[in-house]
């Protein structure tokens, strides 16, 4: 029978240790208990979540499926309250009792809240408006509350306090940082560095800083109204965040008879004192008198623990860590390691200060080794210094080279010469050697190596280095990630193969494709398949409505509140007084919340409830502008030769003709076009999926692959032609070639450079492959099949097609009888 391994604490150390154990082939029956209701997430990134730089969903390291896949029983939201070392049992807050053969304690820390009057309400936890900053729930609650309030005080001017203060600025107007000591980050910085940082924080970020500020009381009866300092000063505020330090969660261990001082005391094998089967890892562990509050030491501890518990390397030992820290506040560079300044007469101090620019740097050297360094305002040398500090590397005779790049640009690190044990990803503790062995083990894609090792998945700054190491390790044989080449994630085939299979088996519906080629249906693949099948089969496509995204089910763009937008077609941006009147009347009659000119030269009626869509279309009686679909969208035009004194071609007429012909054509991505009457380019044709520019002599230039959205790119000149008819034909052929060969959601700005403009020109203009006539014919079929979707209004296509999905209006109530 397998040994039973129980892990208390499902945070960064607990989950990482289990990963290390699994990667050593450790055969255990694993049960994990976590106080928090989630899988394991990257706690470090909470600062970025608060600051709005990172989305919550991006911070998860192991989601619930990871536990399932690895056969781990995870009890979330369960707190272990007692360990019985003799009976080898742990007891949970849910009343459970679980036996173990081996136990790992990874309970981390909690926020330390100094004994300040008014911080707590007896029997109810924190006073309303008082928060700590440790967990995802803390962060969510803080964001929710801060948004509705105005002034925050953060108590504690360390790393966490600074990151909290910066993050809060994202949600409310005014933030004051109150720090008990005489200068910021006093645990890591000397006075001068701390003062320099304070000036930057005040001037650059606009955070008010109070030092020597001992908070004695939190004021307010029902909710916070201010804080009171030791000198009697009162700072008004309605939100208070405590960031005054952390305390290891060791109470359960102490109550259960383990040796606990500041943390749970462990030996070099990461075992609790005198316990053969109880291991401790992470912030709750005290090793050689040290308790750590950063992640880097946890990675080292997890490796030693895993080597020990699995018996892979009985000699493995943890010797303590040298830790360096960086502040994660954009625009405020702070890095520090080791000593803040010289401690004995023999210590060398090299120091540079330029307070006007907010720069302070120092290094402290003892016996020729770097024992401390501080960088404020310029982190350029941080990587090199951290390396010298952690490894005790020999230092240059010219010490100023430690603080400045002297002469020439800094050489890119030569990855071949980097030692194997050099850490590349400092967030997730991944060495060059680990990356190399992952590549040697057969993983030859950058994304695959990143997934497998976690490298680059923390703050992300090491990604370029990871890429270079993978390229080097693969000896030029880096492969594209195969899944990256699938057309949709749920069917493991690139587009061309998928199309061949669809044709071979005559698969005409999305469910048929899953049935034959993909196994289980996949919600995230349906929309891409629907688009592809519609293009391939036209009228004989079997349209399963559930395969459509909501926008395509109701022919409008869903908005943040569940209403929809209505954008009628306005070919080439040209309209008439009577059309404008009709739009105005409909908008007025229905109290449309907003009428807006779009960036696509037409009019948007925003905020329409789903159930009103058919009526509004009927009253407008105009075709859909397809502003919601992955399809042909608009053709922007300028006034051109009919009116403009510079115009050399009738751009308006050509734009209207193009839109008339290609309206509603679906594709792998949006297709936005423009026609402009001269190279002054008033309709922005150089930056469109296909842009047409009239040039003197009755000619038209056609540009493709341009963009000015999330990505900005000037289009490539496809060709120059002598007539509007040729423009229309080549446009159709180009779009059809794009529809057939681009990946799902791949816009032309990515597809054109991928395929190459020369190749596209050969196929589309010179017909090198002899497929031009076929492309034209298939586009003709698509054009002929066009039906205005807004005609689908008399009868719903499915039951309840336009029924509201949220209570924008009161739904029919179902009576409930007891």
């Amino acid at each position, binding site marked *: 029978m397998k040994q039973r391994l129980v892990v208390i604490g499902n945070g960064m150390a607990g989950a990482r240790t289990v990963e290390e154990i699994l990667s050593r082939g450790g055969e255990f029956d694993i049960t994990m208990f976590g106080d928090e209701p989630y899988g394991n997430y990257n706690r470090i990134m909470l600062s970025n979540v608060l600051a709005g730089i990172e989305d919550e969903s991006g911070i998860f390291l192991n989601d619930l499926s990871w536990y399932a896949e690895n056969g781990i029983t995870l009890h979330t939201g369960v707190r272990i309250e007692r360990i019985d070392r003799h009976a080898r049992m742990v007891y949970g807050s849910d009343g459970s009792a679980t036996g173990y053969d081996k136990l790992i304690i990874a309970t981390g820390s909690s926020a330390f809240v100094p004994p300040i009057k008014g911080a707590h309400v007896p029997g109810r936890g924190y006073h309303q408006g008082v928060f700590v900053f440790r967990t995802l729930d803390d962060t969510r609650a803080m964001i929710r509350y801060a948004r509705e309030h105005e002034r925050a005080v953060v108590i504690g001017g360390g790393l966490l306090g600074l990151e909290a203060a910066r993050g809060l600025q994202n949600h409310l107007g005014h933030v004051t940082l109150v720090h008990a000591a005489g200068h910021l980050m006093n645990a890591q910085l000397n006075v001068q560095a701390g003062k320099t940082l304070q000036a930057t924080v005040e001037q650059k970020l606009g955070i008010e800083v109070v030092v020597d500020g001992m908070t004695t009381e939190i004021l307010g009866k029902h909710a916070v109204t201010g804080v009171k300092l030791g000198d009697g000063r009162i700072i008004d505020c309605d939100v208070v965040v405590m960031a005054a330090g952390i305390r290891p969660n060791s109470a359960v261990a102490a109550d259960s008879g383990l040796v606990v001082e500041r943390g749970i005391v462990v030996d070099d094998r990461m075992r609790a004192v005198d316990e053969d089967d109880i291991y401790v890892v992470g912030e709750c562990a005290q090793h050689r008198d040290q308790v750590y509050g950063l992640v880097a030491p946890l990675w080292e501890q997890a490796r030693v623990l895993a080597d020990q518990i699995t018996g892979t390397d009985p000699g493995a030992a943890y010797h303590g860590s040298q830790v360096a820290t960086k502040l994660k506040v954009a625009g405020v560079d702070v890095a520090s390691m080791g000593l803040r300044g010289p401690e004995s007469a023999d210590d060398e101090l090299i120091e540079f200060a330029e307070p006007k620019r907010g720069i302070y740097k120092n290094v402290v050297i003892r016996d020729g080794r770097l024992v401390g360094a501080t960088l404020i305002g310029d982190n350029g040398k941080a990587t090199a210094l951290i390396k010298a500090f952690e490894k005790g590397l020999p230092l240059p005779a010219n010490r100023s080279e430690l603080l400045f790049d002297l002469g020439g640009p800094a050489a890119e690190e030569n990855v071949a010469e980097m030692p194997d044990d050099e850490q590349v990803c400092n967030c997730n503790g991944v060495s060059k050697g680990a990356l190399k062995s992952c590549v040697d083990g057969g993983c030859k894609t950058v994304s695959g190596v990143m997934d497998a090792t976690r490298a680059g998945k923390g703050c992300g700054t090491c990604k370029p280095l990871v890429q270079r190491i993978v390229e080097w390790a693969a000896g030029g044989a880096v492969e594209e990630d195969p899944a990256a080449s699938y057309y949709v994630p749920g069917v493991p085939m690139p587009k061309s193969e998928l199309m061949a299979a669809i044709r071979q088996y005559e698969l005409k519906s999305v469910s048929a494709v899953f049935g034959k080629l993909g196994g*289980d249906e996949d919600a995230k693949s349906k929309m891409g398949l629907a688009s592809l099948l519609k293009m391939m089969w036209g009228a004989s496509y079997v349209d399963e409505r559930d395969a459509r995204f909501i926008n395509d089910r109701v022919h409008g763009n869903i908005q943040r509140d569940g209403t929809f937008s209505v954008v009628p077609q306005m070919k080439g941006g040209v309209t008439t007084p009577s059309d404008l009147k009709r739009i105005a009347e409909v908008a007025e009659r229905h109290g449309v919340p907003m009428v807006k000119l779009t960036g696509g030269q037409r009019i948007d009626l925003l905020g329409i409830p789903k159930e009103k869509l058919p009526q509004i279309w009927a009253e407008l009686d105009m075709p859909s502008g397809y502003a919601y679909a992955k399809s042909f969208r608009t053709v922007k035009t300028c006034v051109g030769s009919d009116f403009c004194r510079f115009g050399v071609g009738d751009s308006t007429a050509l734009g209207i003709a193009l839109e008339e012909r290609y309206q509603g054509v679906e594709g792998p991505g949006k297709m936005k076009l423009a026609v402009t009457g001269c190279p002054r380019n008033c309709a922005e044709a150089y930056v469109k999926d296909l842009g047409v520019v009239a040039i003197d002599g009755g000619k038209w230039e056609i540009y493709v692959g341009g963009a000015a959205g999330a990505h900005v790119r000037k289009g490539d000149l496809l060709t120059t032609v002598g007539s509007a008819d040729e423009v229309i034909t080549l446009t159709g052929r180009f779009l059809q070639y794009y529809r057939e060969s681009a990946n799902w959601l791949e816009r032309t700005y990515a597809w054109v450079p991928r395929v190459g403009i020369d190749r596209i020109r050969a196929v589309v203009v010179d017909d090198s492959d002899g497929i031009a006539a076929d492309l034209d014919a298939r586009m003709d079929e698509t054009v002929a099949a066009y039906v205005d979707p807004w005609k689908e209004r008399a009868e719903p296509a499915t039951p309840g097609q336009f029924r509201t999905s949220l209570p924008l209006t009161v739904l029919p109530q179902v009576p409930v009888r007891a």
Partner: protein
Amino acid sequence: MRTSVILGSLHDIPLGEGRTFAVDGAMIAVFRLRDGSLRALSAVCPHKGGPLADGQIDLKQVVCPLHLNAWDLTTGCSLSGQPPVTVYPVRVDNDSIILDV
């Protein structure tokens, strides 16, 4: 106490889609999976209030139409790190959708 409520006919919900029902003040999204079975979840996305019934589904998950977070249709657990949604027992009886609240 458990109460059973008839929400309507099975044919009110197209195969592979969801519809929202108001039950005693609560908004409940009922989905009809392509294998014919039903699932019921609270209708409001815990992320930013999106209408889950407008989401796309497969046999396992529903994907919210607003920011594409996903939830397990059977357990209500998020597959993308969001808070869970409430699930309700739901069944078919003679073409009627029966929900237990």
